[in-house]
């Protein structure tokens, strides 16, 4: 019984390894906002969202398309998906709520507990089956079709009857029957359990037997022999209810007989629980996606299913791309951006402060991660190449441990990034190397970027370093793209990026004056 709703042919594990820079990604791209939007206040959903989005970087094309299809189905069948989720949740909660009592590893206890649990699971599995029956025709995706198919074939009515039958027999209403051979010391060895054949003795005879044996503890009484004659030769005795040692010994012998079935049942329980847990996890991802969808739609923000591109030079084209986290935080619709970076290796973004550069950078990173985990993206349309890691180099606060200065710290982080670079990385630089004077910063940025460009790596660089930006601009290469954050004549920001040559000013004046309101009488502070 498999779920396989995140990967076509295997389970998704919450404990799989996350990218080495997960903390940096969460911080720089404000991913917690995204996860919270997906999870609400549910801690479990938050964990699922975090793991799926961050591990998405490892997904291949097939998996991404697989998930997109499933997500489409989810969007079209929201209540069914929610029902699936609560079913799984019920199973898990019921299991947790059951009192286990003192830990007892003997087979009879294990069997008793397992039977009880199994009965509970059967009920939920039946509901699951019914849900599948009623709704499977509404689903189109390969993932869901196969999921429902499996449920319908594995959980047929006949099968439930069979299971129910076993659950009854395993209470051993007619006693425990074992067969064995004589072993060392003339003790029994290699016990095999059998189902007692019912109706071997009539009901009346059974009652008579029980009655007689309650009266007498002796093995055979001759004058009762004719009554007790059975089909087979047999030798019977009873343990006195006051014989504690005997009862214990008898218990042990019975336990030895049921050892195997008790374990099988307990294992089945474990597996069913595992199945529900997996179901909750994998559906949890889609629930999160649905929540996100709802919230973004409420803000009138567009979302669309991206087109991933597997190989070849990098492609990044988008229409109406925005930073979903910012939108969620500010609670309103944002200005979207268009991007046409076909076969570009370097995108340098310059321009007005507070012009939306960092926001743009974040939207790139965010969309990449969302696409690769199979989600929709915050854009009207989006096409991008698959990367195998997303790396960020954003500004940080002064090192509170005071071990290094800010520039030191930047270079240290850069070093770590270099150590972890892969074939198809996307690196997002946000005002890097600005903690020193422009000349030095430009020089260093130039060297690093030149080196990186020789590898097959995509770079997005937001910067105020004019010399650095300009030097690349002057090379006039087909591989580079230059964007500028715009500014209206009246100094308002457009938050739109357009292609343009880097300029020497970033219009800091505007911001200065917006804070320090110029006094007509006072001197100018230029």
């Amino acid at each position, binding site marked *: *019984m*498999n779920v396989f709703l995140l990967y076509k042919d295997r389970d998704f594990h919450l404990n799989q390894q996350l990218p080495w820079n997960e903390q940096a990604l969460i911080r720089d791209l404000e991913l917690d906002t995204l996860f919270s939007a997906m999870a609400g206040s549910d801690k479990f959903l938050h964990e699922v969202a975090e793991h799926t989005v961050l591990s998405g970087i490892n997904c291949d094309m097939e998996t991404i398309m697989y998930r997109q299809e499933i997500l489409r189905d989810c969007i079209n069948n929201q209540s069914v998906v929610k029902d699936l989720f609560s079913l799984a949740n019920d199973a898990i909660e019921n299991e947790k709520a059951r009192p286990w009592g003192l830990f007892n*590893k*003997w*087979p009879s206890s294990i069997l008793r507990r397992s039977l009880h649990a199994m009965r509970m699971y059967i009920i939920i599995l039946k509901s699951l089956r019914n849900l599948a029956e009623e709704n499977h025709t509404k689903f189109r995706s390969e993932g869901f079709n196969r999921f429902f198919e499996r449920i319908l074939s594995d959980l047929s009515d006949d099968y439930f009857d*069979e*299971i129910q039958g*076993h659950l009854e027999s395993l209470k051993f209403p*007619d*006693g*425990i*029957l074992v*067969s064995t*051979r*004589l*072993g*060392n*010391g*003339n*003790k*029994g*060895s290699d016990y*095999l*359990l*059998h*189902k*007692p*054949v019912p109706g071997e003795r009539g009901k009346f005879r059974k009652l008579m037997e029980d009655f007689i*044996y309650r009266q007498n503890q002796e093995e055979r009484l001759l004058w009762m022999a004719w009554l007790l004659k059975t089909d*087979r*030769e*047999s*030798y*019977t*005795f*009873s*343990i006195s*209810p006051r*014989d504690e*040692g*005997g009862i214990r*010994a*008898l218990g042990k*012998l*019975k336990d030895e*007989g049921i*050892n*195997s*079935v*008790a*374990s*099988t*049942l307990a*294992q*089945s*329980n474990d*597996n*069913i629980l*595992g*199945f529900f847990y997996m179901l909750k996890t994998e559906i949890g991802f889609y629930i999160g996606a649905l929540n996100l969808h709802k919230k973004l739609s409420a803000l009138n923000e567009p979302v669309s299913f991206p087109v991933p591109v597997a190989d070849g030079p990098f492609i990044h084209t988008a229409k109406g791309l925005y930073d979903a986290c910012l939108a969620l935080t500010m609670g309103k619709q944002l200005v979207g951006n268009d991007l046409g970076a076909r076969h570009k290796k370097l995108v340098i973004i310059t321009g007005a402060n507070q012009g939306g550069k960092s926001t743009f950078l974040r939207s790139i990173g965010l969309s990449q991660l969302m696409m690769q985990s199979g989600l929709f993206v915050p854009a009207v349309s989006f096409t991008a190449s698959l990367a195998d890691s997303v790396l960020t180099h954003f500004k940080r606060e002064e090192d509170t441990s005071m071990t290094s200065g800010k520039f030191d710290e930047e270079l240290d982080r850069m070093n770590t990034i270099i150590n972890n670079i892969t074939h198809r990385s996307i690196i997002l630089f946000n005002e890097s190397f600005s903690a020193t004077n422009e000349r030095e910063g430009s020089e260093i940025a130039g060297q690093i970027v030149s080196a990186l460009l020789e590898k097959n790596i995509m770079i997005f660089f937001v910067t105020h370093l004019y010399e650095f930006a300009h030097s690349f601009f002057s090379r006039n290469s087909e591989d580079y793209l230059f964007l500028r954050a715009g500014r209206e004549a009246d100094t308002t920001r457009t938050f739109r990026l357009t292609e343009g040559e880097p300029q020497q000013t970033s219009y800091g004046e505007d911001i200065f004056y917006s804070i320090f309101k110029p006094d007509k009488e006072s001197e100018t502070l230029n």
Partner: protein
Amino acid sequence: MAFNSILYNNPEITYSGESSTIPSCFHDLNLDLMADTLTAGREEYNLKPIYYDRLRSSDEIYYRQDVFKDLENPDLTTKLKLFGKKMQTIRSQEVAAGKLFYKYHRERWILETINYYCNSVEDLCNDLLSVDIKSEGLQSFSAYLKEYLNSDQFKYMSGRAKKILTDLSAIQYSILYRNLRVQVMEYSPATDYAEEIKRSFSRFTESQVKDYRIEYKSYPLEMNDVEAKILDGVVFLYPDVFADLEDFCNKHREYPDRIICTFDREIQFYISYLDFINNLRDAGLNFCYPVIASGSKEINSFDAFDIVLANKLCTEKLPVVLNDFYLGGKERVIIVSGPNQGGKTTFARMFGQLHYLSGLGCPVPGTRAQLFLPDNLLTHFEKEEDIKNLRGKLKEDLVRMNDIIQNATESSILILNEIFNSTTLQDQVFLSKRIMQKIIELDLVCVCVTFIDELADMDRKIVSMVSTIVPDNPAIRTYKVLCRPADGLAYAISIAEKYNLTYKSLKDRLKI
């Protein structure tokens, strides 16, 4: 010639010859220490009396030496040790089975033990046949074993045991537990319900999960009430097999063959001794099989050592000094003199040990040896003063000496260690010379440790040996005892000097 014992080659004499009285020389020669070491861990075999009983003829000695030589083959020794272990198991199982409460439980154990015995003996016979054996003792035993295994009695017992075991193991039965009732029934084939459950739930048991099964260890030596009653049920259902079992156990109560049991004990003598000397061999010391001089008192030994001292030194990883001796022609007495702590007493002990051990048929220390088989090995070492003895030490010494001389014959060996110390020098010389004369008259072999060098010149029968020191450093002993005229320097002075107890040193120390 029927086999009787691996220790004694005379089949007519059933040895009751093992005494449990410790020979008087045992303690003086430190052989009691050796016996303790050899028998440690083997107390159940009661081997010590074997050590107390010296052999009487060179035939008997060579009989044992040949067995030793066969056992130098580690393969054979390993196999014999294994057999010894099996016999131990059999003995302990017998004891355990005797304590079992439930009849059919007990009888099953007896059956198993007898079967194990039969298998062990068969294995031993095969083992012996597969190895190259030259000694009369082992060959004879091997032939005995073959005969025993082919005897009707053994074949019957062994075959029957196996058959009953097979029959028992083939018994299958069913048990139905209902509440407090247990019903034992004839077996009728039925499906494995556990498998059925497994198959049915296989949909839910795909991935690897925890195994909840309890491991039921089997304790075949224990049986509780319920199991016993179930067994009674099985007996009720299959009475014939169990009747067989009962009959078998009654018939074969005394199953182990006496000769084999004796062999099991006696072979430990050889094995324990070989284990002991192999330790010393590992440290680089040599052992040899001495030639027994019959009709001649020409004895010699090369590169020999005190076996007990060597054992101690080897465990401490210290070197062992080797010594030789040689008595040719008319020579009979060795006078050992020289510096104190020079190894004289050790030398004397070594001499005694060599003769004692060769008299047991054992290999002895050294690379080569020709030794004498005495009728008596007499020793006189210094004893503590016994307060209950009102005689006083000198008289005591003389009384003992007299006893010894009375018991000595020309075929005896006598070892004297610093006799008559409890009197003045003049008396000592007088007494010693007298005793020495008597010894010479008797023509017996003697080693005498003394500092009275005059004794060495008394007669041509006397050989003088001296314990030596390092010439440049007189305080250091070499522990080498060499043939040399006694030179009268006791070097006691050098020891005193070492401890600053000479007159000169004392003067300084006490500032007189």
